[in-house]
């Protein structure tokens, strides 16, 4: 039998995961739907027509996905934080790869689809009500064509936010495996620290660089000079590597980290 992967074991594991966690999963979806309803219902009740523009709908979709997705991600391997459950989980005859695949399947694919469906229903209802009450003609966003909208946070095509969400999700999965206690809180702190670091990075660069400003990317810097500004540019591939790493590679890297963390997990 293959010591890394077998379809038979994978299907057994999917079956078992769903059987064991279906109630919690459905509760989580119901809670998320309820919270979305309360949240958007509150905006509806304060009579502000602008709060339902497509730009805001995109923001609600991703904020809800990020918050509930982070919680779901942290819950995926929560069995490992309870010794009797951890023993049962680790000694289940399947590989760490198969267990991580189940986590990805339910945490990313299934949860993402179910959340999107729940959001669509709540959002469509609220936007229709808003249009009815305020006389507006806001379009209901199509969450399967997010590339058609502009991301309200970073001013780029909204579908790129998925990559940021997937990175955040993968970070919380890794945190759930890395920290044996208060993992959600600790991972949130790590996320916060990384975010602050990202905000401070340009300021740190400025300490070491001459007077000037970045031009678009961190690889292009314009030095202010009385005799004429000078443009310092790093090779184009550096920017590509930087973009590819933080947009695409960080996600699989975090999942691979989770895989190795699970493989070497010992009971505490």
């Amino acid at each position, binding site marked *: 039998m293959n010591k890394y992967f077998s379809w038979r074991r994978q299907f057994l594991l999917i079956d078992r995961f769903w059987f064991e966690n279906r109630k919690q999963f459905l509760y989580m979806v119901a809670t998320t739907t309820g919270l979305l309803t309360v949240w958007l219902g509150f905006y509806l009740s304060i009579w502000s027509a602008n709060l339902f523009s497509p730009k805001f709908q995109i923001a609600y979709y991703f904020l809800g996905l990020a918050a509930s997705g982070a919680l779901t991600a942290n819950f995926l391997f929560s069995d490992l934080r309870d010794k009797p459950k951890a023993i049962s989980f680790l000694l289940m005859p399947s*590989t760490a790869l198969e267990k991580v695949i189940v986590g990805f399947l339910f945490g990313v694919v299934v949860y993402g689809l179910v959340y999107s469906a729940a959001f669509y229903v709540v959002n469509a209802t609220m936007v229709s009500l808003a249009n009815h009450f305020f006389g507006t003609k806001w379009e209901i966003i199509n969450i399967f064509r997010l590339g058609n909208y502009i991301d309200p946070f970073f001013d780029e095509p909204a579908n790129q936010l998925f990559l940021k969400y997937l990175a955040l999700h993968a970070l919380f999965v890794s945190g759930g495996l890395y920290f044996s206690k208060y993992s959600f809180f600790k991972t949130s702190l790590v996320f916060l620290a990384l975010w602050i670091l990202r905000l401070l990075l340009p300021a740190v660069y400025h300490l070491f660089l001459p007077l000037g400003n970045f031009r678009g990317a961190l690889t292009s810097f314009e030095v202010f000079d009385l005799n004429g500004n000078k443009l310092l540019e790093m090779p184009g591939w550096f920017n590509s590597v930087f973009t590819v790493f933080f947009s695409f590679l960080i996600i699989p890297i975090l999942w691979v980290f989770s895989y190795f963390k699970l493989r070497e997990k010992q009971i505490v």
Partner: protein
Amino acid sequence: MKGMVFIKDMHFAYGSTSVFEGIDLTVMPGSVYGILGRNGTGKSTLLYNIAGLLNPQFGSVEVLGFNPADRNPDFLQRIFMIPEEFYLPDVSINSLIRHYGRFYVQFNEERFRHFLALFEIPDHTLLKMSYGQKKKVLISFALACQVSLLLMDEPTNGLDIISKNQLRRAIVESLDDNTTIMISSHQVQDLSNLVDHIIILDNTRIVLHRSIEEIGRKLAFKISPDLEEANAAFFKEPVIGGNILITVNDGETESNVDLETLYKATMTNPEAIQYALND
């Protein structure tokens, strides 16, 4: 016969607290091993290392030809651990069979139901069962998986006297030449007439590891009113009617091993017992 578990020079510590300092152990198939020791001497830790739930800091552990730390699925299919604190989902017996039994290729539903009947477990959901009943379901499930190595950590905890007898019967029924059962317990009497090898742990070491047959052949356990005989014994403890003694077995018949007395003697004077057994 090929060994099932090989432990060589294993060192294990929780942080700075050392549990094992270079232990060696070979476990053969077709036997029931009883692991005894005071609280905190590493009985559970030994089982966790064998199952691959903990990894030694130094030395090696090989079980059924695998490194347990790899948690290879073929290895996991051939072992089962019943921990002292266990987890069983609150599902029906049928769901347990359908969603959990299929992970073990040798799982036998008929056998599972047979052991459930032996333990007098009703066929309903685990949600309504007591701790002891759940434990018996887990033991039945483990025995039905027909694994090569069954690790039981304090299996008699939470079981009443009748259930302990049922457990004894179930273990005897499931034994064959290819199966090994390792049972840790601090209730020495629970292992009497059940194990055929004894392992006693103390102070980071295995202080005794022998077969019951060898112990019974080399040592004699008896109650004697004779003071002179008591003074010559390896171990004596006053009881009604004289002293309970461990002496050299001079006779040709195998003595009945009194595990409790052997345990006390080993904890009091391990060198003397080792000396007598090595002779």
